[in-house]
């Protein structure tokens, strides 16, 4: 009897484990601060920094290692231990690294995660140490704003861009369209998409996401470009059930079902459109210049085949901004934070140095000329960076001119609060219009609004 009940308990435990292992993780409650403050500004300090280029990217890695050596010469008391990874951050493992005490002192982060990390108190407040970062006064306030919450600052940017329209110039030519005059209105997008889809089986005029939260993300991008908002100004209620929101879905529905220019395969996620772009069968998609970089580096596309312009009809309106940067381990000492800031200023924020060393990038045969990152706008360092980029360009910069020209009249707009949750809700509406001919747009938006309001009402 005892044997049976023991076995029963053991078996129950085993079976229970099946259901829980997926969401489990360690505690980390017993982590200790990495080091104590010594008070001496020149005392030796060692920091770990994330996002060293991986060994599979030898040119960028060599550049990084050179920069580390140069920086350590300038700051002999600082030792930098680089941590490489590709991708630089994996949201799936972020919490586990934090809990396990292996999170870098200076860790890499996407804009999309910044506010979530600040809210969860998983990054250090660096406000008291910012006086030493001279570049800060010139950084675009909207870009630096990504890393702010109330009056406090939690990180520095490395890259910044906003959404545009990425298009395949080669396909434009094949379809009889002028690649130097990309679409300026959605009507022109529709016409171009029809012509590209008409090239034959397998060609898609316009591609769009609708699964894994990417549908909601692109809904937000299209909505901002039309002048709409995801949430009300107070952040407490949804604002996407609007004329602009309706226009986003109606446009997609028309292209998908009336024009048949969006292909039959839907429920696309991040990699799908990149792969389609790289294979040369996709005409247009919402995306920033970083899409071209990714398609070139990872999906067999060629820089010269692509161009980027502003999202149609977005003149004078907003564009969803994206990018990445660095934040600090909440357990880092003041010395580590100061050392980390010095490194970031040197490597990420100085024209002609680190990531902006375009001369070296050109000599290594790396692409130079994409209109990103844009950290400084029209301030002096911004102009200097643009001039250097032009001087050492290796890719056809003209292909990005329409995007660059539009920037003057477009405002960067951050992601809404509870972004991922809202994107998950809007995936439903996006997937509905792209997979169901009879989708009721008004009802979809009103359902999504109700769901979003519930999400926003909680803890905001």
């Amino acid at each position, binding site marked *: 009897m005892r044997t049976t009940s023991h076995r029963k308990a053991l078996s129950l435990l085993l079976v229970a*484990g099946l*259901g*829980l*292992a*997926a*969401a489990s993780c360690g505690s980390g409650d017993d982590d200790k601060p990495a080091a104590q403050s010594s008070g001496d500004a020149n005392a030796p300090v060692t920091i770990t920094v994330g996002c060293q280029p991986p060994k599979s990217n030898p040119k960028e890695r060599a550049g990084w290692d050179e920069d580390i050596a140069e920086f350590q010469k300038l700051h002999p008391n600082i030792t930098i231990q680089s941590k490489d990874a590709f991708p630089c951050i994996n949201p799936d493992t972020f919490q586990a690294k934090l809990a396990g005490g292996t999170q870098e002192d200076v860790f890499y982060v996407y804009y999309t995660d910044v506010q979530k*990390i600040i809210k969860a108190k998983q990054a250090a407040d660096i406000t008291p140490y910012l006086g030493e970062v001279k570049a800060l006064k010139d950084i675009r306030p909207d870009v630096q704003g990504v890393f702010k919450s109330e009056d406090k600052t939690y990180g520095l940017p490395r890259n910044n861009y906003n959404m545009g329209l990425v298009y395949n110039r080669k396909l434009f030519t094949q379809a009889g369209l002028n690649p130097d005059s990309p679409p300026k209105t959605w009507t022109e997008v529709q016409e171009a998409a029809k012509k590209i889809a008409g090239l034959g089986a397998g060609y898609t005029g316009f591609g769009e996401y609708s699964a894994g939260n990417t549908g909601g993300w692109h809904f937000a991008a299209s909505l901002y470009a039309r002048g709409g908002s995801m949430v009300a100004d107070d952040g407490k209620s949804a604002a996407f059930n609007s004329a602009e929101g309706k226009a986003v879905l109606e446009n997609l529905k028309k292209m998908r079902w009336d024009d048949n220019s969006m292909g039959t395969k*839907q429920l696309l996620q991040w990699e799908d459109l990149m792969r389609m772009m790289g294979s040369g069968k996709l005409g247009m998609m919402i995306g920033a210049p970083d899409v071209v970089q990714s398609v070139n580096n990872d999906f067999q596309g060629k820089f010269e085949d692509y161009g980027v312009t502003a999202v149609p009809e977005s003149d004078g309106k907003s564009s969803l901004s994206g990018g990445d940067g660095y934040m600090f381990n909440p357990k880092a000492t003041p010395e580590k934070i100061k050392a980390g800031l010095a490194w970031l200023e040197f490597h990420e924020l100085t024209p002609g140095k680190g990531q902006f060393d375009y001369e070296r990038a050109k000599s290594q045969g790396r692409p130079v000329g994409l209109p990103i990152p844009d950290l400084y706008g029209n301030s002096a360092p911004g102009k200097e960076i643009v001039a250097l980029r032009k001087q050492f360009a290796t890719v056809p910069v003209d292909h990005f001119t329409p995007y660059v020209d539009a920037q003057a009249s477009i405002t960067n707009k951050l992601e809404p609060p509870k972004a991922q*949750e809202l994107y998950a809700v809007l995936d439903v509406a996006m997937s509905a219009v792209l997979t*169901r001919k009879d989708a009721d747009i008004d009802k979809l938006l009103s359902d999504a609004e109700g769901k979003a309001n519930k999400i926003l009402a909680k803890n905001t």
Partner: protein
Amino acid sequence: MAVLTAKPPVRRSLPQGAARRAVGRNLTAYGFLCGALICFAFFSWYPMVREVFLSFQENNFVDPAKWVGFDNFRTVIEDPAFRSAWLNTAAFTGLSLVIGYAVPFVLAVVLNELRHARGYLRFVVYLPVMLPPAVGVLLFKWFYDPGAGLFNQVLAVFGLPPLAWLDSSSTALVSLVLVSTWMNLGTGTLIYLAALQSIPGELYESAELDGAGLFKRVWHVTIPQTKLILLVMLLLQVVATMQVFIEPYLLTGGGPENATVTVAYLMYQYAFNFGDFGGGGALGLMLMVVLMVFSAIYLRVSRDNEGGR
């Protein structure tokens, strides 16, 4: 139960010296067992217990965890996708039983009856199990492609119209069940085959002498002789299919219109997309309670069988 209690515990009846000798003889076995137990404790049971705690906490892994009672449960229950996730999980499990439960058994019976190429065919049936799950699932992504996919090409050969497969809320879940069935077919078939081969050959010989054909032999000999394994496999399949994750994660992202969101997928979304491990833990705990009901039935079935021997 009565049978078990009626048997005197054998070990207790051993003299003390004999018991000590028995333990001594088994020391090596206990040594080997220790390794497995430590691994289970570290990688399975500890995270499981931590997860139960986590589901009642707000934890950012930096500050001390804050107890929030049932707040995490309230959050996930109020989630618009919660209801869809449970309904889809139940539907997936139900469809898996309808589509996937009988197929491996039938295949095992057929393979068992074969006289030639039995080994080769067993290998072919087992082959999908050897593929990494992600590879198998992504292979089906291509099969299901509404334009150039294999399945629609086959339908076209027979003059049938193409199906939307994953892209329609009415067919997406069934499409996922087909993937899951295909990937797990080999394991089920092998287990059934092992059970079939333990059936004494005389029973079939007697049945054949009495003039029983294949179907009568299956009905009167095979099914009664494999009743227990059929029941156990049914319960194990329920437990396994209720945790379906990889298919919706890789193929549909939960869409279209939440048609393929499952409890395990939602759990993942909470933990890794929303950064809410408490919410993910709460969903995991709910799923565990449901799975425990089935595992209790499984234990009851196993125990009844032991008692009946």
